[in-house]
């Protein structure tokens, strides 16, 4: 099977999955299920990490498997290739028909429906970063493809998109930086049915957080390490079976560590926030957590850590772009039908110009995000581009969230319309580090 066949296979698989499933019916059923209101009080909710499975290597690899790099395009070109186009179409459809209709409820209950997570896993969107030889479905490593998928999912809902995509950050990191032993032990589980929830935990709960200056520590202990610290806004913390944790390695700089949830000293507690509620964010607490030498990812190389930070920022930008586009698509018919003083409010420049600005900045966010991802794929430096994309997406994304509520007026403030969710979710982009990867 050629590379093209293989990645086409993924798109086809996704199309088939959607066509054959009675997903919508199942989701519709879920809607009728009454659920107790979830009170996310943090105090007294601390629990030990998820019991979790035993990760064991089935096969031994001589050296780590890596996905091939995508062929760089020499000229400016924003046309997605055929495979990307198919994947995006399917993901868009999934986002519109399966994600958006349950988004308000998922936000309300602070939980993404399990069926939805399973469906998304079947589409294959969480294992884009797994090398083929380890059961992956895409031969080429493409940050651009990941961006397109994240953008399409976030058009449905950001919180659910985080819930779906966050576990994928772990296999993506293993595919990019894992050694043969780490890959053999941890990657196969992600390609099976019932793949584990997992998370990339970087950010810590304090003002002016800087991912280069971590409070979480990793001290050498014999051949292994002992980890201590608190991680914040970890998606689906209570269900995660495997974490990649950022910690300061014995004064030599930040590094990434693989931590299984069932290890002694691993605790989680709910940390509900203003948004991303469907992603069930929580804190991860590490108290004298002993991990073996095998836990250190990427050899503790600072370049690996920084690349991880940049890739994560691009992913958040992709989500912001998807939600900004969703806001624009929602607002246009609204302002065209909502009448005041005898005509549609869109006939007023003060309203119309806000729409123009949302259109302009959504395009700006998208192009900066694509550029950062495309430079990553070309193997060029992309720290600057990722940082610029993050700056713009954080600022303009927030403004678009706020303007969406404003344009709907009182309707924007109530939960019948998704605008108030965009207002809450888009604020996350300037705050989050980690959690997602492209």
């Amino acid at each position: 099977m050629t590379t093209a066949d293989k990645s086409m296979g993924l798109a086809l698989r996704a199309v088939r999955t959607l066509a054959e499933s009675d997903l919508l019916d199942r989701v519709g059923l879920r809607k009728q299920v009454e659920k107790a209101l979830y009170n996310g009080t943090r105090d007294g909710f601390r629990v030990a990490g998820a019991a979790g499975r035993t990760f064991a290597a089935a096969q031994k690899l001589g050296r780590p498997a890596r996905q091939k790099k995508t062929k760089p395009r020499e000229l400016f070109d924003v046309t997605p290739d055929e495979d990307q186009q198919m994947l995006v179409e399917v993901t868009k459809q999934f986002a519109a028909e399966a994600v958006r209709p349950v988004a308000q409820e998922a936000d309300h209950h602070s939980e993404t429906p399990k069926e939805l997570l399973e469906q998304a896993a079947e589409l294959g969107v969480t294992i884009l970063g797994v090398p083929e030889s380890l059961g992956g479905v895409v031969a080429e490593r493409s940050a651009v493809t990941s961006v397109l998928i994240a953008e399409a999912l976030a058009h449905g809902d950001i919180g659910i998109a985080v819930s779906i995509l966050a576990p994928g950050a772990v296999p993506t990191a293993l595919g990019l930086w894992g050694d043969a032993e780490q890959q053999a032990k941890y990657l196969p589980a992600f390609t099976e049915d019932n793949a584990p929830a997992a998370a990339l935990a970087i950010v810590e709960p304090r003002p002016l957080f800087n991912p280069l200056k971590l409070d979480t520590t990793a001290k050498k202990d014999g051949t292994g390490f002992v980890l201590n610290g608190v991680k914040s806004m970890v998606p689906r913390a209570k269900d995660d079976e495997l974490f990649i944790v950022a910690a300061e390695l014995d004064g030599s700089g930040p590094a990434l560590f693989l931590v299984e949830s069932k290890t002694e000293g691993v605790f989680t507690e709910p940390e509900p926030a203003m948004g991303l509620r469907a992603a069930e964010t929580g804190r991860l607490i590490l108290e004298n957590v002993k991990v073996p030498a095998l836990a250190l990812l990427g050899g503790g190389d600072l370049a690996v850590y920084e690349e991880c930070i940049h890739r994560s920022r691009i992913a958040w930008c992709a989500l912001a772009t998807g939600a900004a586009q969703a806001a624009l698509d929602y607002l246009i018919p609204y302002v065209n039908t909502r009448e005041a003083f005898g005509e549609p409010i869109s006939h007023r420049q003060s309203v119309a110009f806000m729409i123009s600005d949302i259109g302009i900045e959504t395009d700006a966010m998208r192009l900066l995000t694509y550029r950062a991802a495309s430079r990553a794929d070309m193997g060029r430096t992309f720290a600057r581009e990722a940082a610029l994309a993050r700056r713009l997406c954080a600022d303009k994304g927030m403004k678009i969230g706020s303007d969406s509520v404003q344009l709907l007026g009182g309707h924007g403030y109530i939960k019948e319309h998704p605008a108030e969710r965009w207002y809450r979710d888009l604020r996350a982009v300037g705050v989050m580090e980690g959690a997602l990867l492209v």
Partner: protein
Amino acid sequence: MATVLSIEEMCWGDVGLLLTMPRQGLGNSAIASVATEEQLKKYGGKWAAMAITEPESGSDSASIRTTAVLDEKTGEYVLNGEKIYVTSGERADLVVVWASLDRDIGRAAIKSFIVERSNPGMKLDRLEHKLGIRASDTAAFRLEDCRVPKDALLGNPEIDTKAGFGGVMKTFDNTRPLVAAMAIGVGRACLDETRKLLKKAGVEVDHVAPAYTQHAAAARLQQMEADWEAARLMALHAAWMADNKQPNSVQASMSKAKAGRVCTEIALGCVELAGTLGYGEVELLEKWSRDVKILDIFEGTQQIQLLIIARQLLGKSSAELK
């Protein structure tokens, strides 16, 4: 795309100088987009300025008062009116003048006419003194019984109320990303200079650490760079679409709106970061701040771009969304 890139580079040097370069003005774009074979033969290779604006008609170019009347006896059009803000009007060989064949009909009656600069009916009133782009002359003309031959009319002489403004406005779809590119060139010059000055002062942007853990000046510079980079990609995108024959009217307007406003903010922001060094005439930052402002005004102001974008996004006519 090539034009956008070369204009950006030129304007990194100087916008005024680019505008004074022969044969690249709006008039030449108009001739290139609507002229017949014969007109191209006759006027091609000559330097053409563009005269649209009048004292009483700016962004609302459909309301121009300059008239053109066909003199059946001589087969000439007779132009009367007043034109201002004609870039390179003093030195160009030709001036493309917008005039109405019938002021009662409105925009469909507006045609463009090629007037030789030497025509005695076109009198140079004055050259404007401006905030910036002073290397480029900006002329004001009076047209007094200015006679031009019949074939000086560009495009279709018939008044087609259906096609309306399309022909004359088509010029602008092509030139908006070019004006955006001018702003982007100046913006880059400002950022390059400010980066250098701040580095001397011990401030550099760190693209890994979050903005708020850095010097406020570094955070500001990063934010301006983000807006600049976005403006540049939007202009490239609009130009790339044009090159690939994709309709790009929205993207062309978006790129001009974004570039015009952010590059003005960037230039003024850089002056603030550089302090009196930026405000004084020792460095060029103050000059760039003055030059760049015109780019958010000419060939469609910021507000006109927003209007064009809004009408297209919302699917509204100019009668509905005024």
